[in-house]
């Protein structure tokens, strides 16, 4: 059972009012061959909340994120986004649901055959009937939000790692999503660039009132952007709570992870 820092209900899900639940994972399980990656996970993200999931490499964080947006199918259990079952959606319903979700990939996943402007405009061209001028205005607006005004003509290959992430962020928010999923948003960036990305995530949340689900093993980032932090360990939620509660947790697994210690129950040393 999770040793949670905040109260859990009878099913193990973090307690919150039912109408505030925006993302719900119910007894979610996923296995690849003999490897049980996620085992009966219960988790709730409230509307407008920023939940950060931390965990060691290979703990199943990316799998969890892919289950939420429907890139993977769960073996059992359910994912609900705004009350809709992700895996039970018809193709057209899933399209509608995904239009309300944005995802920033770990390595940005920019379309390398397109310019920055075309990358950001991509979803707008696919899902709106806007004319070219309106799309160009929106592209310029979101690029300005991420500090890349005037970068429309650049090729992804000309960009640094931090710039790619910012373009990926601009692309993800172009349609004005209700939910943002961040896959390791600060991994591979220097501390200053990482902090800029953190500020962008916070700024976008305030500007667009999005619900955010972030996976990371960068504790500086987690403390800065999270309303609550959940730790994923051995396919289960080990603990969940506010950044302060996580920091003060007496759970040795949490303590080893947040202090980045080589010795402790995670490594068995």
């Amino acid at each position, binding site marked *: 059972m999770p040793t949670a820092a905040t109260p859990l209900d009878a099913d193990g899900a973090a307690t919150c009012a039912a109408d505030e639940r925006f993302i719900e994972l119910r007894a979610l399980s996923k296995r690849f061959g003999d490897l049980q990656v996620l085992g009966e996970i219960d988790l709730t993200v409230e509307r407008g909340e920023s939940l950060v999931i931390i965990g060691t490499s290979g703990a199943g964080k990316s799998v969890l994120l*892919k289950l939420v*947006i*429907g*890139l993977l199918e769960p073996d059992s259990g359910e994912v609900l986004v705004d009350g809709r079952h992700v895996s039970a959606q018809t*193709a057209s319903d*899933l*399209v*509608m649901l*995904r*239009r309300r*979700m*944005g*995802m920033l*990939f*770990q*390595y940005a*996943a*920019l*379309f*390398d*055959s397109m310019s920055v402007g075309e990358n950001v405009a*991509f*979803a707008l061209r*696919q*899902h709106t009937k806007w004319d070219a001028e309106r799309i160009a205005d929106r592209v310029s607006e979101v690029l300005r939000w991420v500090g890349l005004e005037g970068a429309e003509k650049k090729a992804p290959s000309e960009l640094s790692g931090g710039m790619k992430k910012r373009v990926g962020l601009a*692309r*993800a928010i172009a349609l004005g999503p209700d939910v943002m*999923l961040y896959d390791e948003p600060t991994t591979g960036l220097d501390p200053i660039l990482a902090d800029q990305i953190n500020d962008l995530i916070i700024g976008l949340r305030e500007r667009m009132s999005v619900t955010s689900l972030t996976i990371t093993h960068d504790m500086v980032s987690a403390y800065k952007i999270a309303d609550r932090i959940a730790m994923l360990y051995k396919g289960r939620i080990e603990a969940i709570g506010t950044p302060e509660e996580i920091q003060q947790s007496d759970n040795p697994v949490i303590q080893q992870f947040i202090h980045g210690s080589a010795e402790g129950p995670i490594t068995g040393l």
Partner: protein
Amino acid sequence: MTRLLTAVGQWAVRLASDAGETALLFGSTIAGLVSGPYYVRSWFAQMFEIGNRSLPVVLVTAGFSGAVFALQTWEGFAKFGATGLVGFAVARGMTRELVPVMASLMVAGRAGSAMAAEIGTMMVTEQVDALKTMAVDPVRYLVVPRVLAAALMLPILVVIGDLMGIFGGYAVAVRMLGAAPTAYWNSSFDFLDIQDVAGGLLKASLFGIMIALFSCARGFRTSGGAQGVGRATTGAMVTSSMAILVSDFFLTKLLLSLWNL
């Protein structure tokens, strides 16, 4: 012995799995063709990629195939005093068989491997996942335009290749071997039926569909970074080439028996 059986079993499972995935991709492509949305810009880009960029290699291949075919048939036909039929033999051989197969093999090597490499790279860099998260179906966006473009551009390449092959044969027969120009042209076109050309074009279109499907399927199965992309690229070319050569026999038999094409 056990190791051998295990290897054969694994190969058979992999083959069945690949075939199943390709069949599913074919089904999704048909669904995408019927229901849309249609990505016209992507379709035109692929037509340029497959058509324009493959044209030089198809011209060279067809031209020299026609030339060597004329050279060989001239030697053989001369034994029976039938050199006047060399033009017809070259034209029929080129339009029915050589150009459709050679052009398709060239397109498989050039455009098919490029399709597998591009989609494979998109797979390992999560660009395909990014498409999905932006509510865009990768099959409709990536596969349908490629299949349509290949089905359309290969017959066009074959028509141009047919002319180039016949011209290659003419150059050798008339310029090198001393055939009379008018007699060669008459021999080439008087006996050539529309079925000869139509059969080649139909086969080319089907080969185009196969190349695009097998190459895209190979691209979607890519994993493991740069090495995986390399494997997908060569795999796409090998699979497409084998499919062209094997299916050519059965298609030819079928077309001949059904419509004398």
